[in-house]
Each structure stands twice: as structure tokens, then as C-alpha cells.
């Protein structure tokens, strides 16, 4: 027995010794190089695909402030919210946090884990108020820098359009006739599937449907509970989505998001209804020169485009950070035009809200941006307010359209399905 105790304690001691020596090791490397205290700020986000690009952006910051090192540690998109929630509760969260807009971010703020940025960053006052509101309390306290917005529209293959002498459609009728021509000629019209239903809502309904349900005005009415998803304008948008079904590829019910990207990215389909964040993906798949983009077609010629310019990412600071001063310096830089310019060029398709004049180096991003000036900007239909609880408007619209495409629900039933699910909102 004594022997066992002895060997156990030996083991423990040796483990402790290893632990200590490791600790001192890292201290040494931490202080080496630059004189003074070099600190490391950990940044987290849900975009694991951005590591290289974000590292390049942050390297510019470290050039300016050599004693602050930025460590970008993203977490897989679908696990991000759970991981963030747990790490903040355990007190080991990142110093700087990418935050989703509206209720999702607000729930994090309510756990008292985020700094008040209205005091820290006076420059926020110059940001567009609609973007600020996406990361602020109802009282107007900002907890996130509005960092990036995304737009939704239609990508197309230039070579396929050229082959049949097709012009970029401006109205819905043009759009349908383009699809008709392509289908007649045996092309796969849309690289679209319905397996991942968030696409059906975020990109299709909120992006292409906005021109039919009345865009921002209609959305505001929903928020004020003056309109419901069963109203004729919202149902018409559903009907328009259903019109596209016959141009979907065979077995579209089983086609998931990644397959859609592969289909379009490799040139196997003529069009893809997607979001601006996909530029990078198509770039990686090669042949970006052949990819064009047009904004959601309007209902009839002369209509003003209702452009879904969605508030995607805000940046918040952890209230429990060890380095509040350094975080403040970094946050100030994140709210500066310098960062905005770097960010937009590294991540084409993400548009910064920071006031300033910028030059975009990506052709597709330029095209996407070109529509903004002559449009009414809006955000995703039921993202704000109507997605604060489960079943969220977000999930409901996606599910309803998915079931509508599967012929499980008729169009009016799909509208009912959403409205029923939202009963908690109207209570």
C-alpha cells in the first residue's frame, strides 16, 4: 500500500513539475522580442474560413501597435453560439467577439458579458443609425461595432448566358423567361436545393421576395404588429418562390448548401440565388471571371429595388478581459476606415458600415455595391424582433417554404404555418 501511495505522489509531483516548467516557458516566449509587455488579444468569430484573411488584416494592426498581438480563433458556425455562451459563462471567453445582429447578440449582452461601447467609442455616432440599432439595447446603448453587412441576389455564369444571348433580367418576367430559355435548352437553370432551409428564407424569401412583399415598409409593419405573414403581400412573395420550383434541379429536396455551391461553382448550373459572402467560395473553386451577379429582379419595370442589405456581423468586447486598455485600442482601430478598407478587400462581399470612401478591388463586390445607391435597403424579413424566441420567424419561414416545395403545404398553408408559429410574438 505504501508503495502505491509513494508512486502516486511521485507521479503527481512530476506532473506538477511539468506543468510549472511549461508555465515558465510560455512566460519567457511571451516577453521575448519586443521590449515592454507584449499582450495577446484573442478574437473569435463564426467564420473559420477567414483565418488567413483575418490574420493578414490583423498583421497590419500589429505593425502599428507592435506590443499587441491579435489571435483570431474562430469556431465552426453551427457551434459558435453554444460555444460562446459556455465560454463567457465560464469566464474564459475571447477578448473581442464577433456578434450576430439583433436578438442573438442582445441575448449575449443580457448576460452582462459585453462592454458598453457608446462610452468607449464616440466615433460610433457617425455610423448609420439603422446599423447601430442591430447591436444596441432598446435604450440605445451600443455593445457592438456594426462591422459588416451582406447583400442577397443572383449569381450567373457569363458563358452560359452568352451562349443563349441572354441579358441580365431586370424584372421578374424577364427572370422567368431567362429561366425558361435555359430550361428549354437543357441547361440546369438553378443550382438550388431545399435541404438546408435557412437558404430558402435568408436568401430567397428575404432577398428575392422583398420586391414583392414590399421590402422595408412591410417589414416595419410586421415589427409593429400591424401586419401578419398571412397578408396578401407576404403570400404573393411565397407564390413567387413557388414559381421557381420547376427550374430547380432533379432531386432538389436532397441538395444541401455545400452541393449547391459546388454545382454552381464548377459551372454545372447557370444561376445561383445566393449571398455576397459566397464570393470567396467561388473564388476558391476557380473561374471567378465567369461569374456575374445581378440584384433581385423587381416586380415590374420602374419599381424601386428593395435590396436586402443584411446586418451580419458586429464586434463586441468582453467585459472581463484582462487587457481593457489594449482592447480599447484595438476596438478603436476596428471602428476606423483603415480597418474597413482592409476588411472589404480581404473579404469581398462583406460591406463595412464605417463612414468613409472606399475603393473595392473585387469586380463582383463592386457590382453588388452598385445597386445600393438606387435602392431601398432592408434586412431579412423576420430577423429583428420576430426571432427572439423559439419558434423563431427565421426558422418558421425556412420550414414553411421547405414544406411548400415538398408539396406538404400549399401556399396559403405555408403562410398559416408561419403565422401560427409566431403566436408568441402577437401575444
Amino acid at each position, binding site marked *: 500500500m505504501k508503495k502505491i501511495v509513494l508512486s502516486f505522489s511521485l507521479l503527481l509531483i512530476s506532473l506538477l513539475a511539468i506543468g510549472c516548467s511549461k508555465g515558465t516557458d510560455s512566460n519567457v516566449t511571451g516577453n521575448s522580442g519586443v521590449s515592454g509587455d507584449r499582450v495577446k488579444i484573442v478574437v473569435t468569430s463564426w467564420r473559420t474560413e477567414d483565418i488567413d484573411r483575418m490574420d493578414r488584416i490583423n498583421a497590419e494592426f500589429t505593425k502599428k501597435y507592435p506590443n499587441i498581438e491579435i489571435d483570431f480563433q474562430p469556431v465552426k458556425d*453551427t457551434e459558435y*453560439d*453554444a460555444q460562446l*455562451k*459556455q465560454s*463567457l*459563462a*465560464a469566464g474564459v471567453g475571447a477578448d473581442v467577439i464577433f456578434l*450576430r445582429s439583433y*436578438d*442573438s447578440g442582445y*441575448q449575449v449582452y*443580457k*448576460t452582462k*458579458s459585453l462592454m458598453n461601447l457608446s462610452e468607449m467609442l464616440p466615433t460610433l455616432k457617425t455610423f448609420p443609425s439603422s446599423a447601430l440599432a442591430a447591436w444596441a439595447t432598446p435604450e440605445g446603448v451600443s455593445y457592438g461595432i456594426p462591422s459588416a453587412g451582406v447583400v442577397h441576389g443572383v449569381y450567373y455564369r457569363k458563358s452560359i448566358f452568352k451562349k443563349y444571348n441572354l441579358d441580365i433580367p431586370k424584372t421578374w418576367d424577364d427572370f422567368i423567361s431567362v429561366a425558361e430559355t435555359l430550361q428549354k435548352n437543357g441547361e440546369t437553370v438553378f443550382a438550388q*436545393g*431545399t*435541404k*438546408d*432551409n435557412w437558404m430558402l428564407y435568408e436568401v430567397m424569401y428575404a432577398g428575392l421576395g422583398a420586391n414583392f412583399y414590399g421590402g422595408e415598409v412591410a417589414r416595419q409593419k410586421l415589427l409593429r404588429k400591424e401586419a401578419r405573414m398571412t397578408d396578401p403581400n407576404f403570400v404573393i412573395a411565397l407564390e413567387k418562390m413557388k414559381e421557381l420550383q420547376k427550374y430547380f*434541379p*432533379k*432531386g*432538389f*429536396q*436532397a*441538395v*444541401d448548401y455545400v*452541393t449547391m455551391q*459546388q*454545382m454552381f461553382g464548377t459551372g*454545372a448550373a447557370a444561376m445561383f440565388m445566393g449571398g455576397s459572402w459566397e464570393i470567396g467560395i467561388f473564388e476558391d473553386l476557380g473561374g471567378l471571371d465567369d461569374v456575374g451577379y445581378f440584384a433581385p429582379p423587381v416586380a415590374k419595370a420602374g419599381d424601386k429595388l428593395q435590396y436586402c442589405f443584411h446586418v451580419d456581423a458586429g464586434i463586441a468586447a468582453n467585459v472581463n478581459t484582462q487587457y481593457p486598455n489594449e482592447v480599447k485600442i484595438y476596438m478603436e482601430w476596428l471602428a476606423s476606415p483603415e480597418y474597413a478598407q482592409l476588411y472589404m478587400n480581404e473579404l469581398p462581399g462583406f460591406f463595412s458600415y464605417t463612414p468613409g470612401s472606399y475603393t473595392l478591388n473585387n469586380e463582383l463586390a463592386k457590382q453588388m455595391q452598385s445597386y445600393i445607391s438606387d435602392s431601398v435597403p432592408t434586412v431579412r424579413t423576420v*430577423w429583428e424582433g420576430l*426571432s*427572439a*424566441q*423559439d*419558434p*423563431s*420567424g*427565421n*426558422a418558421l419561414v425556412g*420550414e414553411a417554404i*421547405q*414544406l411548400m416545395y*415538398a408539396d*406538404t403545404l400549399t401556399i396559403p398553408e405555408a403562410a398559416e404555418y408561419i403565422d401560427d*408559429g409566431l*403566436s*408568441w410574438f402577437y401575444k
Partner: protein
Amino acid sequence: MLIANKKHWKFLFIFIFPAFAVYTLFMLLPILNSMRYSLFSGDGLALNEFVGLDNYIKLFTEERYYSKFWNAFGNNIQFFIIVTLIQNILGFFMAVLLTRTFKGSRFMRKISFLPTTLSVLVVGFIFKLILQPYPGVFDSVLKAIGLGKFILPWLGDPNSALVIVAVAVSWQFFGESVMFYASGIDGIDDSIIEAAKIDGATIWHEIFYIILPSVLPIVSIVTILIFIGDFTQFDIIYAMTSTKGDPGYSTDIFGSLFYRTTFSSAERGGWGTGMGATVATMMFIVVAIGVAGFLAFFNRRKEALN
């Protein structure tokens, strides 16, 4: 039954304590803590607002909660039935086949266990890739053998998705039930079967009057293992149809329901940690009742046979 006396207690302590300590620390305490959480409400993970049984009342009276809960429960039962049919019944007959001696039977026995050694996630992703319509590996096989008209959007159709997922799980753990049954059949005394054969018993007589009664305890073990496995299954759903149980919650089972409701934010189907813990506790109760029920059922069968 061994009765502990003063001489034994030291040994009993030494044998039981380590396992019990580990079990308490990593199973019992977390389960109890999770049950405690089900009585609380609040934002984030650390809950502070005591609400008593409110979460349970909400779960069973508010449509948005109970519709999902009962949907997952129903799906889970279907899932369990399909898996049981394949693993138990086909597995049993497969084991009978493999315990006959023929050329390659030993090899077949070994190879049938191979899928079980894979990770569930790997199996899930492979099945998903094979079943995808583009490039359509499985669909082109069907076309090649002239069954092209039976092609479905397998995982995209609410009517077929759950069956497909259940088949994938069964495929993976098929070898496990075969192994259980085969070892049971191996344990039957050869002389009994020989005697029966001399009396003119056919293969069916042999199966129903000799093999089945002898392996009944194994049937109960396998069924209970499948039951527990299926009612706490999560990985395969995660890999094949996402934690939302696509399409339209048709493959949502307890495992995915619990994960989604507890850890997701509200716009992705989260109910908050307190409600999530409530779902977990209900899962625990359902599994406990189910296991108790199966044990009682099989014990009675066994007594009837004796």
C-alpha cells in the same frame, strides 16, 4: 446471493469504490445537476432564477414546446422500431446463418463486425455523400440495375429521411447484434441440437424451439441496448440531417431536440438552458421507464419459458 460479512466488506469496498467514485463524479452528479437546472430559468448557462416546476408545465402546455417534444418522441419510437426490426430480427437470422459451418463462415463473422468499429459520424457523412443526388452515387447504381424509377430525394423527403437514417444506424450496428447472437448460439450444447435432428426436427423447429429460447436473455440485452442507444442517439442525425432534424423536423429525435433546445440561440431553435435541462430530464425518465418495462417484459417471458 453473497451476503457481506465483516470479513468481506474491505474487499467489497476496494472493488466497488473506484468504479462508484468515477461513476458518481462523471455520471450521477452531472445528471443530478442537470435535473436541478430544469428547475431554473434565465439567460446564459449559469442559471439563477428558481421557477420550480414551471419549465415542465411549459413543456407540456405550450404548443410550441409540446409539439416539438411529442414529434421527437414519435420519431424516436419509429426510429427504434425500424432499428429493432433490422438489428434484432435480421441480425438473429444472420447469426443463425453464420453459426452454420460453411466455407468462409469464420471470415464472414469477422467482417460483419467491421462497420461497428467506425465512428457514427463517419458512417453518417458517408451515407449522406452516397445518397446525395449530385453526383448521385447510389442513384446511378439504382439506374444501372434498372430501378431508376424508384429514385427518391432520399434525405430530402420527409417520408423517407427517417427510414434512411435508421437504416444507416442499423447497418453500422448490425454486426454487434450478430456477434451477440452468434456467441449465444455457440453456447448451445451441440448434443441438444443433434438429439433434435435425430427426432426429425427441421431448421425452423430448431430455431423456434431450441435456439430462440436459449438466446432470449440476449434478445432482451440487445433490445435494451438498442433502446438506450436510440433514445440517446444524436451523432447520426447531426451528420445526416442536421440538429434541426431536416426536412421539417421529420428526423428530429430526443438527442437532436435536446442539443438544439439547450445550446442553440433562440433564432436557431434554442429554448434556453433551463428548458433544455427539462428536455434532458424527460429523456432520462422516458429511457428509465422504457428499460424497466423491457426488463419486466423479458423476465416474464423467461419465467413463462422455464
